[in-house]
């Protein structure tokens, strides 16, 4: 993956200037799209089993929130509600104060597996929605993730990390206001994963979408997010802001301390 790292990605890694996270990052022209998201008293039950039990969370525009919680606690279920694939038994999801009903064009979900169409080339996968001007937009998105040179390959010949980057380009094409990431890096090795972290952070700073990242990996959460929330028993049981300046280092004492504090809550 190394040779295709874009210059911009490197820049994020070597910047020494601390950027305080409570100061709005510099964003490009088509950014500042981020919209506020509120989850209000969400209930979901599968038969007798209650999965979400009055989950409430307010996320301001452009905030990067990491969601951690044990396996089976209902994180993916929550994502499906926000994107509009499923409906809550009770409660409401609101974007910009408007209750969602059905699939949302302004919300995009990056699944745990890349879910690329094997019968379409990388470029056609990225431009799957075929909106007017999709070719140019897709090439730009592939440029964002450093894969322009693989545009005419079949997905089957890509590595796991490359596939996940193509999936990331696919969600970027539609300039989402809210980006949901359901453990997108879970299956990647540690090195590829840390490349992906840098990439995601850069894209978020650049595009300014409101971001919700699900992860099992507490260090990933603390490294990337403005705020970490813990789901337990169908509710948010812990909610902590991360004010450590970016770029953050995994070995930073403050990060390590926060990590163990959050782990206690999971």
């Amino acid at each position, binding site marked *: 993956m190394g040779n295709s790292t874009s210059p911009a990605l490197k820049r994020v890694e070597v910047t020494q200037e601390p950027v305080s996270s409570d100061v709005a990052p510099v964003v490009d022209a088509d950014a500042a799209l981020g919209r506020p998201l509120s989850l209000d008293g969400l209930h979901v039950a599968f038969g007798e089993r209650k999965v979400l039990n009055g989950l409430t969370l307010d996320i301001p525009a452009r905030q990067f929130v990491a969601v951690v919680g044990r396996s089976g606690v209902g994180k993916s279920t929550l994502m499906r509600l926000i*994107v509009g*694939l499923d409906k809550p038994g009770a409660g409401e999801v609101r974007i910009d104060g408007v209750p969602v009903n059905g*699939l949302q*064009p302004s919300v*995009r*979900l990056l*699944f745990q*597996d890349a*879910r690329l*169409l*094997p*019968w*379409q*080339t990388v470029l056609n996968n990225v431009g*799957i*929605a*075929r909106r007017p001007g999709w070719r140019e937009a897709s090439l730009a998105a592939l440029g964002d993730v450093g894969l322009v040179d693989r545009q*005419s*390959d*079949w997905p*089957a*010949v890509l590595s796991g990390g490359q596939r996940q980057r193509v999936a990331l380009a*696919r*969600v970027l094409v*539609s300039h989402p206001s809210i980006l949901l990431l359901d453990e997108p890096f879970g299956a990647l090795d540690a090195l590829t994963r840390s490349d992906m972290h840098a990439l995601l952070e850069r894209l978020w700073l650049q595009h300014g979408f409101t971001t919700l990242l699900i992860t099992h990996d507490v260090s990933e959460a603390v490294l990337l997010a403005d705020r970490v929330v813990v789901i337990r028993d169908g509710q948010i049981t812990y909610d902590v802001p991360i004010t450590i300046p970016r770029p953050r280092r995994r070995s930073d004492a403050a990060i390590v301390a926060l990590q163990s504090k959050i782990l206690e809550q999971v």
Partner: protein
Amino acid sequence: MKHRWADRLSLERLAPWLVPLGLVVLWEVAARSGWIEQRVLPAPTQVAVAFWDTVSSGMLFHHVGISFQRALLGLLAGGGLGFALGVLNGTSRHAELLLDSALQMFRNVPHLAVIPMVILWFGIDETAKVFLVAIGTLFPVYLNTFHGIRTVDHGLIEMARVNGLGRAAVFWRVVLPGAMPSVLVGLRYALGIMWLTLIVAETIAASSGIGYMTMNAREFLQTDVVVLGILVYALLGKAADVVTKSLEHRMLAWHPAYHSARSAGG
């Protein structure tokens, strides 16, 4: 050194042909010397002469043309209907509920068993043969299309919907290509059944076609023409196989099993 390599290569190419060639020579010798009676099996050279005679009299092309036409019409009708029903039942639970059990019942009737019925209905004219081929090819195409559509990765469909594809786009870009490998398997089965049905139908009730040609030759003890007819059937079967194989290579070029080149080339 180079010369030796070339020798080896051509030997390797020739090797698979040695045994069949030897058998043909043995057959020729046995037939000529009278070990095998003329009534049982003519010599290969006699078959070749029969081939030349029937070609120059135009008889062979006349019969092959008629058989080919029946095969194609029957396949288009049966395969087309099977495909349409497979798509309908695969995409609509209501249609499946209404139609599938009836189709399963019909499927269990061996289609050759209805030959007497078909002769009663249509006599021995063209419709009878086309009808038989059609019902023979309908079910393999139906079953494999249905199965292919139902086993398309649900995650891909969900991904497409989340990325803003409507119902029609999901069908054309996700469901149909995903079902295509299975549809083509059905087509291959159908082609086998197509020839088999035609052979039986033409030998039992016909006044033209390869099957008729061989049956007619049998009455006059022209074993050379009979053997020629069998060979023509074998060649047509092989040709059908080659066509489906190249179709697979074209339509499933994305499939790792068919990757000839690394790149899809735009």
